[in-house]
């Protein structure tokens, strides 16, 4: 701790930070540009100047950059000093000499850090009367617009993109006032995290292109605290809506999960919500006709067709706990399927059980950054849990931070830390079947089959305990295992990451065994174990339970109710056909026109995350709640979209002839908590609907929300009452509380007086860049569940394939493997062409060339796709493009035939 003296007042601060950080954490405003809590200090913009005095008696002082000056004990500074203020105003004036002053047409306007800082410094008069330098802009692909004239050269973009996110295709060019930030030439930004540029850039150089087409100001959108549905990471988002459309996804700070950054799937992949072809009203499919019906009619039909019947309920790992639970209540525990395949469910259940094992600690995404040695078994993280990949990238920097600390250099001094570190990194080992996008930080990489990786994993586990390694791995693999074991043991905090994406349970078992073998320090597990699962709520469903699809389909039912699940993405079409042939009624609740929806006799228009509330559990076991962003019926009364749980409960009570007793979200949450003990913690995820701040609900709309009385005018000149939100403490209104509050899980958007940009998270945090004042959103369920005794696991037997055997191995792509992402129009140009990946050696063996088509026969399914020859894939393995090809079983060996017709190379 340290005492600093600011403008005559004394403050207690941490002592290890810089003055800018310390003052912002104290709630004192100092303008800044180049500094960012995640990027550290470089002192280039000179905006954060304050007056520093040698001691209490020094009256002269000198200007220093607060971001470059440590807040050590007995530091005397003045923010208010006249010279400091004048200088800060001048800096903005200089920056504005080249800025185009195009705020009216700039998409950053209204949430622009440059605007905020300009106002904060008091610069309000333009004296510069000469020419401005101008730049050409670049086409950076479908996500991000580029408007270089607005650049204030804070260097944040390159520092984020290259230094933080590991991108290689954004740079700074030229010198002096001509410095230019962009790619070497036009082209799509390659980083999977490019979208964060939009928030990192303090002005309108990089803006969200997907928002441009339907643009509106930040203050004209309605928001809700929400959770990204793209993968199992559980990143917090703040979606913005206007006129019944999602317009933009912004990051919502959660100091234990995503902090300031999302991946591009999360930021740009929610366009499916706006699809025109969504079922927005209930439908009956009669013969080949689709009838749109009223809610009552649909419910009557559904009740009639389910009453007294033996009904199978198929839930979904992409639906909320509430909706899955309502289905289970409707059909009964024994008739409830998780909607996962046998294989997937076993994997997810294994992950859940490992997380409940004595001696296993699962870190959150922020903690991942603190580990100083990482071993990844089988996950291509950038594709399967992108935000975690970004965290792992930070963990590799710990070695450099340690070296810097040895030389008394503070961790926030970005350039000196990098200079001292040079190429030194904390070790990261990656064992996958494909080359990953984390290669550049890997100390060692192995390309191998899932089975080989698992066996190598067990060899590492054995090496840690100095036990004999299983005999069936090669000598260089043993050397490798010994080295990894040595590094993991040597590390202060080793982390093992694995997951379900390769459909190989032995990978997670090996990972657990390694973590267990690393033992404990002071009664705490030394190692962390983090397991990636497939979908946003896979972990939630594993905790709730239910039977897998295959088991469900083994019996006969009169009717099937499917909730938010496209069965054709789970099982081969033939299998579904056979299963569904056995039932008379198929009722599907979904928000997308999926192949399963097309098969339904009754379609109930379910809410997506944007139109409904719900709770999901991330891979970390963090239960988090997303809240309805808007009410679509407000703009079009014909729309009747309801959360699946509402539909299901109405059907349920209808069948029972009882009145509805879950009238609000809290009712269903309580029911879940009381009936599923493992999920009891979800009661604490967010305050109930009765929560108020100063007697007010929380406003979803910013104070300056405009046009409310006019926006419905084309429909009717009578302005209806704003929709009432009975389910939560949030209001569909600008009336209500806006700002930091006791509940951090109920912050719809970041705004504070004078802080309109995402930088305003400052005002919501305990310390800048730290955690939210009232604690980060979410409840870690595994921390509350009883632990199970540790088991020990054994390595799987090697697969003894011969030279003519081929197998499929899943290959994931960030934008292709997400069911909803694929349905988002802007993603089309970013999704790779469906193809089987084949290694160079195997291509030679099979005598196929790049682009040539092959037919792969797996089980009963044949798939014909072109071949993509890649550098790295294990011998005898063909990469199956997850999400882009018909579903097949990946367990057995396959037959490949090469199409005769030669295709141009």
């Amino acid at each position, binding site marked *: 701790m340290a005492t600093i003296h600011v403008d005559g007042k004394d403050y207690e601060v941490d002592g290890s930070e810089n003055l800018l950080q310390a003052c912002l954490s104290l709630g004192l405003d100092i303008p800044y540009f180049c500094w960012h809590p995640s990027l550290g200090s*470089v*002192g*280039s*913009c*000179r*905006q954060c*100047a304050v007056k520093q005095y040698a001691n209490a008696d020094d009256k002269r002082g*000198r*200007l*220093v950059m607060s971001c*470059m000056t440590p807040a050590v004990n007995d530091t005397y500074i003045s923010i208010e000093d006249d010279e400091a203020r004048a*200088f800060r105003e*001048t*800096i903005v004036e*200089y*920056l504005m*000499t*080249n800025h185009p002053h195009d705020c009216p047409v700039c998409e950053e306007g209204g949430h622009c850090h440059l605007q905020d800082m300009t106002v904060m410094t008091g610069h309000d008069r*333009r*004296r*510069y*009367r*000469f*020419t401005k*330098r101008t730049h050409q802009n670049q086409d950076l692909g479908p996500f991000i617009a580029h408007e270089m004239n607005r650049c*204030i*050269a804070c*260097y944040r973009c390159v520092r984020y993109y290259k230094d933080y996110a590991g991108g290689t295709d954004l740079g*700074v060019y*030229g*010198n*002096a*006032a*001509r*410095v230019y930030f962009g790619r070497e030439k036009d082209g799509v930004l390659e980083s999977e995290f490019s979208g964060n540029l939009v928030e990192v850039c303090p002005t309108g150089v990089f803006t969200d292109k997907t928002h441009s087409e339907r643009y509106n100001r930040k203050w004209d959108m309605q928001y809700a605290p929400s959770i990204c549905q793209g993968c199992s990471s559980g990143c917090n988002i703040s979606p913005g809506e206007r006129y019944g459309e999602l317009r933009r996804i912004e990051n919502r700070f959660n100091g234990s999960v995503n902090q300031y950054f999302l991946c591009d799937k999360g930021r740009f992949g929610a366009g499916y919500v706006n699809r025109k072809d969504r079922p927005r009203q209930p439908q009956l499919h009669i013969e080949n006709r689709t009838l749109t019906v009223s809610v009552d009619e649909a419910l009557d039909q559904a009740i009639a067709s389910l009453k007294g019947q033996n009904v199978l309920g198929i839930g979904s790992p992409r639906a909320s706990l509430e909706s899955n639970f309502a289905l289970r209540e409707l059909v009964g525990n024994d008739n409830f399927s998780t909607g996962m395949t046998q294989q997937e469910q076993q994997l997810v259940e294994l992950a859940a059980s490992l997380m409940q094992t004595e001696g296993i600690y699962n870190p959150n995404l922020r903690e991942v950054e603190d580990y100083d040695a990482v071993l990844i078994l089988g996950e291509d993280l950038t594709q399967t849990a992108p935000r975690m990949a970004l965290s792992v990238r930070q963990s590799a920097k710990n070695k450099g931070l340690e070296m810097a600390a040895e*030389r008394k*250099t503070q961790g926030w*001094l970005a*350039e*000196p830390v990098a*200079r*001292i*570190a*040079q190429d030194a990194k904390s070790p990261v080992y990656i064992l996958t079947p494909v080359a990953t996008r984390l290669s550049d930080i890997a100390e060692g990489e192995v390309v191998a089959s899932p089975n080989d990786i698992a066996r190598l994993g067990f060899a590492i586990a054995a090496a840690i305990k100095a036990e004999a390694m299983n005999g069936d791995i090669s000598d260089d693999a043993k050397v490798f295992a010994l080295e990894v074991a040595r590094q993991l043991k040597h590390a202060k905090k080793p982390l093992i990451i694995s997951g379900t994406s390769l459909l190989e349970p032995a990978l997670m078992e090996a990972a657990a065994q390694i973590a267990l073998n690393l033992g404990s320090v002071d009664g705490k597990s030394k190692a962390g174990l983090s397991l990636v699962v497939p979908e946003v709520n896979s972990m939630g469903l594993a905790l709730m339970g239910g039977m897998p699809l295959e088991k469900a389909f083994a019996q006969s039912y009169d009717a099937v109710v499917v909730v938010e699940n496209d069965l054709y993405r789970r099982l081969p079409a033939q299998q579904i056909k056979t299963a569904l042939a056995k039932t008379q009624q198929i009722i599907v609740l979904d928000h997308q026109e999926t192949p399963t929806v097309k098969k339904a006799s009754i379609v109930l228009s379910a809410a997506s995350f944007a139109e409904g509330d719900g709770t999901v559990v991330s891979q970390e076991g963090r239960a988090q709640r997303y809240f309805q962003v808007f009410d679509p019926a407000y703009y079009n009364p014909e729309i009747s979209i309801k959360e699946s749980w509402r539909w299901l409960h109405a059907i349920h009570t209808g069948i029972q002839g009882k009145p509805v007793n879950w009238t609000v979200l809290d009712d269903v949450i309580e029911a879940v908590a009381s009936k599923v003990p493992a999920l009891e913690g979800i009661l604490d995820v967010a305050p109930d609907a009765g929560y108020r701040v100063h007697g007010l609900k929380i406003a979803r709309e910013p104070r300056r929300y405009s046009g409310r009385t006019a926006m419905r005018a084309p429909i009717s000149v009578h302005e209806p009452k704003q929709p009432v939100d009975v389910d939560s403490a949030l209001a569909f209104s600008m009336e209500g509380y806006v700002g930091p509050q006791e509940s951090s899980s109920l912050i719809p958007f970041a705004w504070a007086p004078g802080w309109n940009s995402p930088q305003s998270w400052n005002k919501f945090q305990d310390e800048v860049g730290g955690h939210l004042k009232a604690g980060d959103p979410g409840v870690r369920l595994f921390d509350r569940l009883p632990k199970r005794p540790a088991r020990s696991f054994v390595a799987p037997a090697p697969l003894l394939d011969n030279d003519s055997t081929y197998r499929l191995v899943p290959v994931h792509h960030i934008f292709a493997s997400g069911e909803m992402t694929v349905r988002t129009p802007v993603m089309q140009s970013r999704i790779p062409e469906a193809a089987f990946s084949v290694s160079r050696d195997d291509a030679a063996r099979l005598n196929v060339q790049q682009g040539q088509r092959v037919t792969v026969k797996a089980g009963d399914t044949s798939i014909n796709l072109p071949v993509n020859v890649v550098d790295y894939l294990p011998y005898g393995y063909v990469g199956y493009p997850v999400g882009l090809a018909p579903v097949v079983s990946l367990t057995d060996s396959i037959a490949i035939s090469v199409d005769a017709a030669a295709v141009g190379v």
Partner: protein
Amino acid sequence: MTTHVNTEPRPIHGNGTAETHPLTWRLKHHEFLHDVDTYESLEGYAGMKKALSMTPAEVQEVVKAATVKGRGGAGFPAGIKWSLMAPNDGGPRYLICNADEMEPGTFKDRLLMEKLPHQLIEGMIIAGYTLEATQGYIFIRGEYIEAARYLNEALEQVRAKGYLGKNILDTGWNFEIHVHTGAGRYICGEETALINSLEGRRANPRTKPPFPQVAGAWGRPTIVNNVETFNNLPAILLRGPEWYINLSAHKSKDPGTKIYGVSGKVRFPGLWELPFGTTAREVIEEYAGGMREGLKLKAWLPGGASTDFLTTEHLDLPMDADSIMKAGSRLGTCLIMVVDETQCMVSLTRNLEEFFARESCGWCTPCRDGLPWSVKALSAIEHGRGKMEDITHLEQLTKNLWIGKTFCAHAPGAMEPLQSALKYFRSEFEALIPKEAESVVQISNAQQA
């Protein structure tokens, strides 16, 4: 085409002897000394041999005692800089010669390298040995093509002699020197930007601390010194600190001799090695032959473009750090530029600021965006489109682009000539501003200069 030594009216070597002109006395015997044997025949490498017979710590003491000041412009004592180098941990340690010489008006390092490449190499070997350096680099600007060639040839000869390479003169010490040629940018002369440039990066200055002595090139302990600084070392080793200090003792407390020079409209522009503390008048009038026919001196820059203008009233000051500082300028590189009375100060200052604006690295706001403004304001005044407020604004710039407010010393350097031009010649600026400009009602901001 090479730079030839100015022989009129007083040649650089003058009546120099090894005792009085340690840097240039050999040029009296040979027009240049590219050959190692010739150099050795004139006490060449004797200082190095002496040093290598001592311990590094002993050599360090000698350099410290000589209080030799850096010749790159800032005048920081080399001995003190060296003593701040991180202790030897067995890893690489770098010694860098700053041969970027791009300060406008400065041409001394070119002469030293083109004429006396061995003297620099000898100095670097002495420094390298003292600092236990493992590798030396000469960062030379790309335009010094001949100097780079002579240095490389000299290095070859020296390697053959065993003065570079492994186990030099049986000391067990290994050292190599590589000539790295730059690709143009004044900022590369700033020592941390220079290190970035050497590493193949953009030449942005680096955060200090940590200083290069602790974390310099490739994160390792590094010392950067100017060409002329190294050139001083052989004689100091040979003749001792006392002799060195006495070279200038009767004139100045800055020790040793200095390469002084004059450019501009004097009769004989050139370079001379003189004891520290020689007056500007002596240099300009006696050595450079005074102003050309019919011209009168109006102002002078004592040591490069980034120093403050001085006037005729300062001509009798000794040219050493303290005296020039007291007069409100900086000694800089000691290469005087004279401005005659016919020269418009506004144009001249505009030219200077154009240089600084163009050469800004673009890292920090005041420099990157403030300097172009100064150019535009000066240009407007120069071309009769200025306003009184432009002068006020230029004055504000000199305050806002000052030391501590910018990231490195580039922009403050740019402000030195500007502030002094405004101080001494404000009337010239005001005279160019159209009177009516003040009364014109401004109707558009879009009006361009």
